[in-house]
């Protein structure tokens, strides 16, 4: 699905140069669940932005299904972002003035789904995530975990091939964290999507099929965790299902 070859990202701030990514090589297979770990400020978010076509590397290639995202025009990237990638953020990033359902619909606006069908799609996904009864609530009326569910619904409603999550549980308490991770894991298994989760929480990373650690802008050899065949994953912590 992804192949990253010698990817570098350098930020220039005046005289100082920050090498956020300093020669990253990485493969992500289709339908894989990859956890990216590493200490703060090591380039995890930067990597995720490149994977989502939200930023361009300074050098190197970011191949997604054989196309180099670094070379695509903005006009080609926008439809990719709208259909192929789903994003989940640490801070949820819901539009505060829109209800849960409307927030989910924003993703369908981008994917150019006709207005008449948006409502049904959005409600269906919210229902899948156990949020049907909160569809008309504003983000401010929802708990953190509920907001993140809405955000996940927004990422999923367009049926993306890749779900990219940057610290999706960073702002949540432990119980909610387990809930959300369990949810992501279940979605990954049920829908066969590729899941990349950035986290510095080992409890989250432990669930992944693949783990990569970023340090000093480089990916250390991915550790292979329990290769969990789809549908037969053991849940050590007994995550409560939505």
């Amino acid at each position, binding site marked *: 699905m992804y192949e990253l070859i010698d990817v570098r990202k350098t930020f220039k701030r005046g005289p100082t140069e920050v090498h956020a990514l300093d020669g990253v090589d990485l493969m992500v297979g289709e339908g894989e669940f990859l956890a990216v770990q590493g200490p703060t400020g090591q380039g995890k978010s930067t990597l995720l932005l490149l994977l989502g076509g*939200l930023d361009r590397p300074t050098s190197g290639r970011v191949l997604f299904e054989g196309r180099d995202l670094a070379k695509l025009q903005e006009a080609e990237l926008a439809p990719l972002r709208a259909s192929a990638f789903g994003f989940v953020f640490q801070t949820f990033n819901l539009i505060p003035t829109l209800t849960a359902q409307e927030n989910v619909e924003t993703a369908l606006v*981008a994917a150019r789904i006709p207005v008449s069908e*948006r409502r049904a799609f959005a409600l269906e996904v919210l229902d899948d995530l156990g949020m049907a009864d909160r569809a008309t609530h504003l983000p401010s009326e929802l708990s953190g975990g509920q907001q993140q569910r809405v955000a996940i619904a927004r990422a999923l409603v367009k049926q993306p091939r890749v779900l990219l999550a940057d610290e999706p549980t960073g702002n949540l308490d432990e119980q909610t964290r387990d809930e959300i991770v369990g949810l992501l894991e279940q979605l990954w298994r049920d829908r066969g999507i590729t899941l990349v989760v950035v986290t510095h929480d080992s409890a989250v990373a432990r669930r992944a099929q693949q783990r990569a650690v970023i340090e000093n802008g480089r990916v250390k050899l991915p550790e292979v965790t329990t290769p969990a065949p789809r549908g037969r994953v053991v849940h050590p912590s007994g995550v409560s299902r939505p």
Partner: protein
Amino acid sequence: MYFTYIRRELRRRLKQSLVIALGLALGIALVITVSSASAGVKNAQRQVLHSLYGVGTDMTVTRTATRSQVGPQRLRGFGGAPPAGGARHIARSVLHPEPGSATLPASDVAKVSSLSGVAAASGGLVLTDTSFSGVIPSAGGGFGGSGSSTTKPSFSLNSFTVDGVEIGAGAVGPLTRTQVTRGSYFSAADASASVAIVSATYAHQHGLQVGSTIHVAGKKLKVIGIANVSSGAADVYLPLATAQKLADLKGKITTVFVSVSSASHVSTVAAEVKAALPSATVSTSADLANEVSGALSSASTLTSSLGRWLSVAALAVAFLVAGLLMMATVSRRVREFGTLKAIGWRTRRIVAQVVGEGLALGLLGGLVGIAVGIAAAVAISAVAPSLGATVGSSFATGGGFGPLVGGRVAGSGPFGGARTVLVHLTAPLQAHTIAIALGLAVAGGLVAGAFGAWRAARLRPADALRSVG
């Protein structure tokens, strides 16, 4: 979604939205008020011109007398030395052009009306009837005060204004058919008849009715109509030929009244007339405005300079503030727009969203501004006092000849140097003003939206994950 989003966002930042909308509203209200008021002032100026020269007149053509022409004219009225010895009664009534103005051949009317851009032209005689009656003591005693005579001098001096009107001149000229409210207008058969139409004011002052008799230049005339004319217009109207006969000015006129086919051509036509009749003085309502002093002139200055600048400045400030506030708003929504970009919204769509918000504010401000502007214009029309416009003699007669040489004088006395016309100031609302206001509102909204959109368009989606808050 699009409109829901706009509505919710504007409501979320209600205070800011109100500041933007009310700022635009203020600017737009000012534009409407000022342009209505200035239209009102222009109307008033036209009214002053019309009260001097009749409805439909866009310009007048007169000729300035040279001194040698003035002299005999004045002497003609009061000529003749009092005979020696004893007091003597004098009663004279003379019809003469206004001092300082000279006559034109009647054929000049045809010259003017043949010019392109002239819709209609008619010739008229603008005259004053001055009657003098009194007792003058004999040359030996009277003025010297030697005491040999007991007779004290006593005078009475009366004057009223008389216009000779070309019959069948259509809508241009000092008196038109529609202004006659009682009796009738001159018919073709009246061309040189001894008939007159008097102004309602004059009729009231002198107890005249249709069928009454008046004296002009000592001749009896029958009143066949009463006309409702504006405050400064002539008292008595005669058929042109009758006036020419009474004033002893056969084949002469003092004034050509010109109406122009399009108001925007006035200055062009004025130049043409000037070229065709080099010795004539051409006066337009714009010239009149320069001659007018008093409250109307202050109102004119107020609306044309202060008002205009004020509304331009207010609009500019409103646009700028709206733009900057929108930009600040967008800056505070970096994460929101970054997120939308991250989930696939095109820059175009985000720009449309921001411009839509600006436009909604512009329309809101526009509606409020138009309502306030209309209210202000209506209020001006309702409460504005009548403004006095004092027209210097030079305009009325075409030349200034010192304090004794008067223009037309409304009623007080024959020798006033200027004449005051009272006009009611209104602020008429014009459809195009509202349209312009609406256009400005939309423009304001677009400017505000564009400022914000410019900021939003430069957002990188990566900022969605960076900016916290």
